């Protein structure tokens, strides 16, 4: 198997997985319940989601560790089981047989003032602890995702690198489309933010969540024109809508694949996948549109 950093640098574009929480919900996870608890109590379902993605063509899958930092686990009374949860989540992802397993690192759940009451030390503590716990699990990378504050993304990146210097860190921020371009909720602009993360040592940088594939494609074009970093993109399947008591997303797998496929053959787009509402059908559709590694002429 190719070394991950080599693969990110040289391509072909790495196919990631899609939405995870939405897939657990489809298997019966109740609203507001902790996906992390399922790692302990419903491991077969967690493994089932991973396997479905691997069968659809995902080469790198995210372990179910997005919410497995102390601050978030505390809300569900699970902080005492933080090691067990992180270790078991990586084992389940490994078991699914993907070539690469990424530890998924989500936000702490608390913002800096004036919006929230967090401080940098709390953030550092949370990410370093999760990084140390995951350091010897054999994950191929950390993927910091869904960060709406560049400062939290940078703090996570620095803390993880301190905790596990040998493991590459990818960082994806969440951007909204505004009149003047793409910005995070806290007002961090796309262009400067990606460069800052690259300079701070991220192996690849990018965007996930909130935007549907069409907007994400536009974001990718702006990013490609303005930074020489390796890039990763994971759009949503459009906006969730409730119809007849069931949640559906506005976009079809075909549209999603259509928007993303051109990026897959663009140099420096190192990884593509999906976020909320995307399921294995989306990944399969994208796989079908991407040239497979084996099909690339030597």
């Amino acid at each position: 198997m190719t070394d991950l950093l080599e693969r990110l640098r040289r391509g072909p574009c790495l196919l990631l997985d899609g939405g995870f929480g939405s897939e657990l919900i489809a298997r019966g996870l109740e609203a507001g319940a902790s996906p992390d608890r399922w790692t302990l109590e419903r491991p077969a379902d967690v493994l089932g989601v991973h396997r479905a993605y691997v069968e659809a063509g995902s080469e790198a899958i995210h372990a179910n560790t997005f919410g497995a930092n102390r601050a978030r686990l505390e809300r569900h009374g699970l902080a005492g089981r933080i090691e067990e949860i992180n270790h078991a989540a990586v084992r389940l992802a490994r078991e699914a047989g993907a070539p690469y397993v990424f530890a998924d690192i989500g936000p702490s759940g608390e913002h800096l003032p004036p919006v929230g009451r967090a401080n940098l030390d709390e953030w550092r503590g949370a990410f370093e602890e999760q990084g140390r716990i995951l350091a010897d699990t054999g994950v191929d990378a950390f993927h910091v995702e869904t960060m709406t504050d560049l400062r939290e993304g940078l703090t996570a990146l620095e803390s993880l690198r301190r905790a596990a210097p040998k493991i590459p860190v990818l960082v994806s921020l969440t951007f909204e489309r505004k009149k003047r371009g793409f910005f995070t909720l806290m007002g961090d602009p796309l262009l400067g933010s990606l460069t800052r993360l690259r300079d701070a040592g991220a192996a690849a940088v990018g965007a996930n969540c909130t935007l549907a594939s069409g907007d994400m494609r536009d974001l990718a074009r702006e990013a490609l024109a303005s930074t020489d970093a390796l890039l990763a993109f994971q759009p949503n399947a459009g906006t969730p809508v409730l119809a007849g008591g069931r949640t559906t997303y506005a976009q079809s797998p075909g549209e999603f694949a259509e928007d993303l496929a051109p990026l897959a053959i663009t140099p420096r787009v190192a990884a593509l996948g999906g976020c909320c509402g995307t399921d294995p059908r989306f990944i399969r559709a994208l796989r079908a549109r991407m040239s497979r590694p084996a099909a690339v002429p030597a």
Partner: protein
Amino acid sequence: MPPLDYAPLSKAVIDGDVEESARLARAWVAAGGDPLQAVEQGFSEGIRRVGELWEEGEYFLPELVQGADAMKAALEALRPWLGARSNAGHGRGCVVIGTVEGDLHDIGKSLVATMLSAYGFEVHDLGSDVSVARFVEEARRHAADIVAASALLTTTMVIQRELAAAIQAAGLPRSPRILIGGAPTTVAWAEEIGALHAENAMRAVAVAEGALR
């Protein structure tokens, strides 16, 4: 009387300067100025502009929260005088607000609470993951005019329907209106369950004002 220059009052809110807002408010009444006019023509203008800048994409969440905090500081400083003069500033109505049960999303709801409070509503923020029973109990206790419920997930959005039905069935003192919001919610959904809808914090203020007019 001081010269009627409201611009510094507005500016303090636009700049999100909490201390300056409170200081200007106290100086205004100390110099014999009308506290109600300070709110209506000074500080409120500032928060209105902050809202516009946010909607235009010039301001982001931190600036919006900071502006609202400055507005609240001014109202707080003026409260003794406003209370003596009239109910203005805190007489706009009482809102009980929270994110529905099973949903931990807090930012949007807190922002609506902050803006309503900055506009002079009496706001009781119940936090996130709030049960229908607790909404009803708190609405009764505070004699709420509006019960506002946020849901960020399609799976928790259905609880807004339960809440609307429970509030209507509870026979509360002021027959509160129900205001809903959150990413998956729509005007059509609000109409279906007999509620008002706001797509963001600025709209929530306008809808709440309209509902109580």
